[in-house]
């Protein structure tokens, strides 16, 4: 193991200007038991100097208690946050970790592999720009790897990185790596995963994590951190020509309740702003827009981004729009670029990821949350279940926890659904238990 005493003096203070230029990259890590995932996460955090002295001290002390040799660390202690996890040596839930390099800030969702893997994978990957799937170089692609990749494929995560770990334990053998690389490519093709990146690493020794390994001269590709710093985010690769969509969160009508900080209250006396976060596309003052439901057309007269006036705004920004006409657009409405509003749908076939222990069966009633709308819905039909190794469909009557399959949903009101393949925001739903409020399932709109 490398010297874990953080070399503090090498870290120079950097201008806040460069801090502000950094972009945000969200990724998840997944692997089977003993693939070395905790070690990889610990290694990334350590090499990114995101583990501070007091945390390291705590980990070192507990590691020694557990019989680790002096100077060696049980990296899992860094990610297993709950008492029950540390006591039982298992990971229960997704943990979030943060680190940054000069170019990017990273949000890492660390997904435990063995217990409830689908639930955790779905939670961790739903918003991820990339997922790193760990493979043990000695074992190669195993059943659980295929399942992880299948979930990632269904969630259409932009980038998949297969980290072939413990490459030191196969003697840095190029042939073994190529074998796994070919198998990975074959599985990816079968599961319909577009681009995957396969790289040889040793999380324990640090090979190809931050620094290029001299022990894998046959590998010419990027290191793991190179990939994480350079892969485009989901927002960056989203078609910039995607039509504008603003799901309305609420309507701001301050009237008498203006902020005392407003200098010219007269100007805002009749203010009526539509607040939300832009789901797709861009909007400028003067644009024609249509409103779902109803289809009324109007013009954008003003834009505030996070409270500041602006001429234009883009996807992922929280905005408030003012419109030329007094139209009805309450919470649940969608303001869309003129001529592009999605057709309202009362029925849809979705890919359903069952998260609750109570199975989804035909005929049950649920609540569905889509964008900012929540409506009642009926499970009109459970169509089939996926084989999680091949993604093949099999007939099914119900979907139990951690199962994935297709379901036909019928809604109590029209929803402006879009295929998930086109729009993550327009095509994602959660199913909620109408009585106790539990999150039952996640779903993506098929067509």
């Amino acid at each position, binding site marked *: 193991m490398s010297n874990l005493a953080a070399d*503090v003096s090498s*870290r120079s*203070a*950097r201008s*806040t200007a460069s*801090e*502000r230029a950094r*972009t*945000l990259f969200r990724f998840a890590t997944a692997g089977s038991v003993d693939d070395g995932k905790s070690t990889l996460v610990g290694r990334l955090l350590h090499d*990114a*100097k*995101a583990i*501070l*002295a*007091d945390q390291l001290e*705590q980990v070192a002390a507990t590691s020694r208690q557990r019989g680790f040799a002096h100077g060696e660390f049980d990296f899992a202690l860094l990610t297993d*946050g*709950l008492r*029950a996890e540390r006591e039982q040596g298992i990971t*229960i839930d997704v*943990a*979030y970790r*943060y*680190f*940054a*390099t*000069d*170019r990017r*800030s990273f949000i890492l969702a660390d997904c435990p592999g063995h217990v409830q893997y689908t*639930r955790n994978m779905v939670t961790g990957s*739903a*918003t991820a720009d990339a997922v790193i799937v760990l493979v043990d170089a000695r074992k190669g692609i195993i059943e659980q790897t295929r399942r992880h990749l299948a979930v990632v494929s269904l969630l259409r995560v932009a980038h998949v990185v297969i980290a072939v770990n413990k490459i030191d334990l196969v003697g840095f053998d190029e042939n073994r790596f190529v074998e796994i690389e070919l198998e990975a490519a074959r599985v990816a093709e079968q599961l319909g995963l577009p681009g995957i990146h396969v790289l040889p690493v040793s999380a324990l020794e640090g090979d190809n994590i*931050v620094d290029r390994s001299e022990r894998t001269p046959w590998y010419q590709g990027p290191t793991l951190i190179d990939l994480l*710093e350079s892969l485009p985010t989901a927002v960056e690769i989203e078609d910039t020509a995607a039509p504008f969509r603003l799901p309305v*969160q*609420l309507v701001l*009508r*301050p009237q008498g*309740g203006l*902020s005392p*900080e*407003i200098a010219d209250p007269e100007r*805002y006396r009749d*203010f009526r702003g539509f*607040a939300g*976060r832009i789901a797709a596309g861009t909007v400028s003052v003067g644009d024609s827009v249509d409103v779902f439901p109803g289809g009324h057309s109007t013009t954008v007269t003003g834009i505030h981004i*996070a409270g500041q006036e602006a001429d234009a705004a*883009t996807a992922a920004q*929280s905005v408030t729009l003012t419109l030329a006409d007094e139209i009805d657009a309450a919470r649940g409405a969608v303001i869309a670029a003129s001529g592009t509003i999605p057709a309202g749908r009362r029925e849809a076939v979705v890919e359903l990821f069952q*998260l609750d222990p109570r199975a989804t069966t035909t005929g049950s009633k649920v*609540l569905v949350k889509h964008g*900012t709308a929540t409506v009642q819905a009926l499970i009109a039909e459970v169509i089939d279940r996926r084989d999680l190794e091949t993604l093949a469909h099999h007939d099914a009557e119900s979907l139990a926890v951690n199962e994935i399959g297709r379901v036909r949903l019928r809604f109590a009101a029209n929803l402006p659904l879009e295929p998930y393949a086109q729009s993550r925001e327009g095509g*994602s*739903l959660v199913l*909620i*238990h109408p009585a*106790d*409020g539990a*999150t039952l399932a*996640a779903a993506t709109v098929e067509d």
Partner: protein
Amino acid sequence: MSTITRSLSEERSDETKRPQGLSALDQLEAEGIHIIREVVAEFERPVLLFSGGKDSVVVLHLAAKAFAPGKVPFPVLHVDTGHNFPEVIAFRDETVARLGIDLEVARVQDYIDDGRLAERPDGTRNPLQTQPLLDAIAAGKHDAVFGGARRDEDKARAKERIISLRDEFGQWDPRNQRPELWSLYNGRHLPGQHVRAFPISNWTEADIWNYIDRENIALPPLYYAHQREVFRRDGMWWAVGEFSQPRAGEEVVRRTVRYRTVGDMSCTGAVESDAADTASVAAEVQRSTLTERGATRADDRISEAAMEDRKKDGYF
């Protein structure tokens, strides 16, 4: 948390540069505003836990932006341990007056005075805040409680959802949390239950300081370097004040210090620093080798699971 400078990035050729989208801070700000608006839209009586500490100040700043030009449409709640820094109470009162919002105060001292709570032998009142907090939530019929907790602060907080359910006893069940997907937050709850909402879950200490710097947000003066009478205990500098007095053998000295966290005066230590403005504090945070809680919070040194244990009982 912290960041690195690597020679790799200087060597990288221009061809790998991607078009710059929103910065990380822009995205975190947009996410925070989205969460605050979701909660206000879906709940009847939200309230924001406001201590005058930097994290709750940032949440309040986001709320002001989320509803501009209207005012923040919910009150703030301060759980007053009675062991406050006077500068922080003054800052709290100025802030609510400036924004025109209501302040609710739950006083630990009232509970000690009438015997509902007893002073702890170690003198710290942080763990005593839970009962007054839960009572104030019930009395205000608050169904959603905003907090400034961040996942990078603590291992238990790293597992907490952005919208996190509390049962009728105010308890958090970390092993049975709702999966949270995309930005579809599920705030459904039964009568008597409430949710805690954490709009800055994904921010690090560095993000907070860079944002305070960018937005020019006012903070209590304690956060910046100042001269103070202090004494050394458990590797931390303690202010000499009404609620923290040196014991025999603890020498009082005058030092230039600042606070990285602002909490109960009886459990919050200072660090030696000459960072007198936000930009120098932001730079200092980058260089620090200790976490903010490890450096300055006695209450988190009790055990590895100190925060988890307090959170399960209904703490912030």
